[in-house]
Each structure stands twice: as C-alpha cells, then as structure tokens.
C-alpha cells in the first residue's frame, strides 16, 4: 500500500515536471525586428512598450515607425504580454492618443512576410513577428526576443 502511494506521488511529480518542461519548450517567442539601419542593435521591453504607446517617437534622430500585423492572434498576444493591456484597452488608448496628440497608431500590414518587407524598406521601422517567421532576411535585424507563453 505504501509503495502504491509512493508510486502515485512520484508519478504525479513526474507528470507535473513533464508538463512544465513541455510548456517551457513549446512557449512561443515574439521577435522585435527593425530596419537594418535602425540606430539600436538591441532594445528593452519597456522601450518597445513606449514605442507602441506612441510615447517614444524618435531614436537617435530617426523617426520611429512602429508596424504590426493584422493577424488578431499575434496582436492579442503582443498587447497582453508586452503592453500589459487588453485589446479593447489598447484600442481605446490609441483613439485617445491619436486624437490628443496627432500621433498615429502602428501601421498594419497583412502577413508576416509583408510586414518584414515593409520594415526592410522603411527607415526607422520596427515591428513584431513570431520568431519562426524571421528567416535571416538581409533588410531587418532582431532587437529582442520575448517569450509570450503558449
């Protein structure tokens, strides 16, 4: 009976550990990418937040041009995990910000490849894609990778 109990506990711990390891292994990452001539080679998560809130609009004399995909799934993950907001809260924020200061919200592009193309061809452009979508394109560089859960 004792062995049965011990076996159950060990099994449970093993299962929990496996789940944790699986979750970590399968956690998705966002890559913050920028035009190759962007003044920085790395960036902090708080600076990314400032850029996507329209609080930071220039970097080293270059106008920062934030972009994003139209895909609601990646947008939702970015807004919740990086911006610390809800989708509605973020949209409401931009209605207000745009109206108050004339700062335009991030430009939306269709697919990851369209976004990467646009960033490659626009000085000061910055955006976010799933890490798997970056295939070493010459026109962009990765500034930061952020784990955003499953």
């Amino acid at each position, binding site marked *: 009976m004792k062995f049965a109990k011990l076996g159950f506990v060990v099994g449970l711990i093993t299962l929990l550990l496996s789940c944790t390891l699986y979750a970590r292994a399968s956690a998705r990452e966002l890559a913050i990418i920028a035009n190759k001539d962007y003044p920085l080679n790395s960036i902090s998560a708080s600076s990314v937040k400032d850029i996507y809130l329209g*609080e*930071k*609009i*220039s970097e080293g*004399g270059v*106008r920062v*041009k934030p972009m994003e995909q139209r895909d609601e799934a990646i947008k939702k993950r970015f807004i919740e995990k990086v911006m610390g907001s809800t989708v*509605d*809260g973020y*949209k*409401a924020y931009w*209605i*207000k910000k*745009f*109206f*108050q200061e*004339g*700062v*335009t*919200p991030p*430009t939306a592009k269709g697919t990851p490849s369209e976004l990467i193309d646009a960033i490659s061809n626009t000085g000061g452009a910055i955006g976010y894609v799933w890490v798997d979508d970056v295939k070493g394109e010459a026109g962009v560089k990765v500034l930061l990778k952020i784990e955003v859960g499953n």
Partner: protein
Amino acid sequence: MRNITSGIILLITILILSASSGHAFEFNGFADINFKKSTEGVLAAARNGSFALGAMDLYFAGTLEDIDIMTELLVSEGRISVHRLNIGYTFSDALRFRVGRFHAPLGLWNTSYHHGQQLQPTIERPEIIKFDFENGVLPLHVVGGYLSGRVLTTAGTVEYGASIDNGPTINTSNRLAPNNTSDNNNGKGILLHVALSPDMVEGFKAGVSGYKSRIQGGTSPVVDVNLTVLGAALNYSTANIDLATEYFSIKNEDNSTAANAGSNTSNGYFVLARYIFKDKWIPYLLYDKISIKAEDPYFDKLGTQDVTKTTVGFRYNINYRSCIKGEIRSVERGTNDWSEYGVQWALAF
C-alpha cells in the same frame, strides 16, 4: 447647402487619403446625441426638454515624408468649422514644432479631450474652460507656432511647450474668436506650460501654464485689454479613482482712456472626482466656479457672470467606443439659479 457640399467633398477626400496605402493617414471621428431639460427662466425650449444633435467631430492625422499633418473638423447644425489644423516636424521626443491652429495648452483638460465627447468624462466642459463658441472666457483656440517636447528625467516625465500666436479678438457677437487669418493688433499671444508626471507617484500629473496677449474688439465701445492667464492643474488617476482639478487666474489691464480704467483679477476653477468600477460604471461629481470682477470690461463685453455649478453624473461605457452619460446640475449664474438634467450618448468611430 454650400457648406454641406464642401463638407462632403472634404470628407470623401479624407476617406480616400486615409484609405490610400501610400500614406499612413489615420481617420477617426466622434458623434453625440443629447437630451437636456432645465428649469431655467422663461425659455420654453429649455423647460420643455429637448433632444439635440451634438457635433460630428472628424479628425485625421498622418505623416508625409516626416512632415506631420493633422486636422479636426466640427460639423454642427449644418456648419463645418476647422478647429485644429496644423503641420509640423518632430525633431526628437524632446522637440516638436507645429504651426497652424491648435488648442492652447492651458491646463490639462483642453488638450486631453478637445471636442471628442466620447473621451470627455462629463457631458459639458467646466465653465472656466468652455470654448469660445460656447461663450467661454479663455482663449482656447489659437493660431500660431508651437514648440513642445517631452523628456524622461530621474524625477519623472516632464512635458513642456511654448507658443506664439495672433492672440484672440472679440467678434461682433461679443465672443472670443481666434484671429485665424490676421492679427488685429501687434500684441502677440505668448504661452508657456510645463507638466511633471513623477515616477514615484504613478498616475499623478501636475502642470502650470501662463498666457499673455493683447485683446481688442467687440461691439462699440470696443474693449482693449492686456490679458494675463495663469493656470495650475493636478490630475491623479488609479485603476478606480480619477481626480482632476484646474485653477485659473485671469488678470486684465484696461488700455482704454476711461477714468476708471485699471487692472482687474478674476478666477475660475473646477474639481472633478470619478470612481471607476470595472471600467464600465463611473459615477462622478464636478464642482466648478467662476468669480469675476463686475467692473472688468473684458467680462462685461463677453457677458460673463459669476457662475457656480454642481454636477452629479453617471457614465456607463457600453464598450471602448461608446458611452452614455446622465447628469443633474445645480446652476447659479448671476442672481439666478436653476436645475438642469442631461443625457448624452457619445460614440467614437
């Protein structure tokens, strides 16, 4: 009719521009419908209670080859008016330059809510910061150049700005009006403002502002005063509590040759407290007051009286684009007092 046609053409142009993939133009708008009833005097329309179309606020902004452009148009009672129109350049976060017509950064409210009723916490603006076309007393629309910026310091975020403008006039309806196309005197309007959002108190913002201009105009005998406005504003916002207060001192030096010409100082302020429950249910209380010097020719020309107003209101956010507000107001204006009831449905699109 001509106005409406021009407006439609303008709107179509804006929509085409905003739909154009070549430029990052963004287009937004606000609309509101109101109902208001009052126990005031003998005005039947007020006593009967009336539905009223609010304003249709159309707004677009964008960047063309690093040149910023923005405009805000108000369509109200078949008339279209340009309330903000400016172009400029952003050198850095610390230095932006704009020329055109903009909302004077006197206090914090005026540049937070502009004409967007859906953003504005209350149905009506506090008396001291009512717009010129609402018979307001402060020059809240100005035409000129504006330098502004924002820097992060060890103490927190500092926002600042300085502008030079035509200064307002008083039109033949005895209302303040920005000199949109020419200046009727050589006394340019000068405005300075600074605000601090300290890191150690999240959600807190304090600002001061000052404005000086010579103002001439109105029906005969015309008014000629040197206006000086000094303002202080405090905002404090948490997830549930939102407090805002602004105070303005208004000094007028009479330039006329009248025997009693002199200097008069009046003031106005408001206090707004809101409790935000689940981002949807927001009861609020607004107290606002203007105390003027009766002998001040500026207020005499504008027809301003002492005002004390207490507003109890409730706002329900249907979603992030739409809200309904209801208010009960107790108003004392001059020697009269009355009650008002108002409901507003406001929308952002």
